[in-house]
């Protein structure tokens, strides 16, 4: 039983990371109806930019290497880079394609993916880099002693960060003027336009917020697995999460992430041995497929409201 809980908790905590990437998709999909294939590339770009600044800033500014000042300055500069990316994307990708079918915009974001990946590597190089956030990746002693369960402190930290981020976003969406405008745009573009909500500003804001989420996700994933090209594949991992949770729901992204994380680890441990193992990498997609058949809008996806 202890082993079961160990696997379950480990799975849930890694699910939080999936949720973080899925969140970026949900934000953009909600506000602009665009399935942003470039989200994974944005995670990569953000993480690489952050690590890059960590490396070059001490040389430029004379700040102490690995110090707090460098860390936060890099964070702010990376965030600024994501905002610039959002503005440029709106201006050169979204604006010219306004009113085009969703599939056109989707194709455009695939193009954007290659562009962003190329630019990121062009600027910072393609080497795999380590990233140390100063959080230890070792078992928490308290849990070891009392329950005999192995839980990584880093996973707990990542989960806490994700939880704070999600709570902050939820409050932002629910209670601020901009958040309300974002939801309004998500519901009905034309009506939002008619009451004077400038769609372009809203798009820039939402892409910038998605960039911020990508930065946080990239930092955590990067600290875990190293900052490398493989970060772009996190986007693929987010797909089953989205199908499970629903494309339009922030809580859905979280719950979907947790379910995918937990079920893939449990399946690996308990089902894996019967089919030769290694099912962790494809089990989520099977789960998503089954889900599509039963509940295509996802667990929390917005049902189309139809008046009868």
């Amino acid at each position, binding site marked *: 039983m202890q082993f079961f809980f160990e696997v379950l908790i480990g799975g849930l905590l890694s699910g939080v990371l999936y949720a973080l990437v899925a969140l970026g998709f949900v934000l953009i999909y909600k506000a602009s109806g665009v399935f942003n294939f470039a989200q994974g590339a944005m995670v990569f770009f953000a993480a690489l930019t952050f690590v890059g600044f960590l490396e070059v800033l001490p040389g430029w500014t004379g700040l102490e290497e690995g110090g707090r000042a460098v860390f936060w300055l890099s964070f702010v500069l990376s965030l600024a880079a994501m905002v610039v990316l959002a503005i440029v994307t709106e201006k050169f990708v979204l604006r010219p394609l306004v009113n085009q079918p969703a599939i056109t915009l989707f194709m455009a974001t695939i193009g954007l993916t290659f562009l962003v990946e190329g630019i990121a590597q062009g600027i910072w190089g393609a080497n795999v880099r380590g990233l140390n956030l100063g959080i230890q990746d070792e078992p928490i002693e308290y849990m070891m002693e009392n329950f005999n369960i192995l839980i990584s402190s880093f996973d707990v930290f990542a989960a806490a960060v994700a939880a704070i981020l999600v709570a902050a976003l939820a409050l932002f969406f629910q209670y601020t003027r901009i958040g*309300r405008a974002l939801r309004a745009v998500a519901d*009905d573009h*034309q009506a939002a*336009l*008619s009451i*004077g*909500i400038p769609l372009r500003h809203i798009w820039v804001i939402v892409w910038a917020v998605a960039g911020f989420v990508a930065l946080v996700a990239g930092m955590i994933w990067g600290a875990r697995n190293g900052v490398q090209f493989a970060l772009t594949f996190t986007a693929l991992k987010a797909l089953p999460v989205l199908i499970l949770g629903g494309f339009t729901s922030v809580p859905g992204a979280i719950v979907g992430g947790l379910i995918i994380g937990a079920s893939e680890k449990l399946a690996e441990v308990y089902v894996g041995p019967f089919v030769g193992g290694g099912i962790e990498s494809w089990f989520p997609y099977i789960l998503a497929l089954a889900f599509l058949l039963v509940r295509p809008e996802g667990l929390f996806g917005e049902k189309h*409201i139809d008046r009868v």
Partner: protein
Amino acid sequence: MTMQNTAAATEAAPYLSVNNVEVIYDHVILVLKGVSLEVPKGKIVALLGANGAGKSTTLKSISNLLRAERGDVTKGNIEFKGARIDQMTPADLVKRGVIQVMEGRHCFGHLTIEENLLAGAYTRGDGSAGIKRSLEMVYDYFPRLRERRSSQAGYTSGGEQQMCAIGRAIMANPEMVLLDEPSMGLAPQIVEEIFEIVKDLNRKEHVSFLLAEQNTMVALRYADFGYILENGRIVMEGEAQYLATNEDVKEFYLGLSGEGRKSFRDVKHYRRRKRWLS
């Protein structure tokens, strides 16, 4: 004395004027063929006509929602309070006081009624106290909305959604509301109720309305002035009362005439004969 004179002069000057506007969709479809109309300050003007006559397009060319639908004003100009507005974005127009309530209501279905109304105040910069006041004012005009304030707009009735859409526009503190087909799909009593409120808003809050309607008789009862559109041209205009009693209007838009039913062949047309190469 001179003060009074200038005040009278500005009131007499056209407030919103549309001058010989031509609209083409998608670079090929000619929808408006030179429409001119005026809305005086503080009045309700009705824009009447059948399906596809160009009523919605006229309103959208004023509010500039046209561009989002690949339409373009290719000739003519539109002025509001003496300034050209045909190149402005919808957001700038709302700030200037011109707002459109779209046909088919277009409430934000997943937002509550109250959130819908608050979203309408997006462009305002006068702080939360003013917005709160407007919200109360809208609730006073539309008591039904106060009752439904925390329901999702998508689950309210058609009449409530229409009220929500008008209330949302009022939240932007407009001087001029372009109201597109408020009676669409609503029961006659609800239509009366909504028109009463519109008239009230016009009288007490001094909001001017340009109203596109197919429901000719109701619209003329509440409007001060009317224009009749046919095939992208204005074919008739006049005081609402004059239009309401005019035999031709009755015949074209109500199918009523002195002599009872007529054969289709005898029905009059204002449509000009087609001229090639013009």
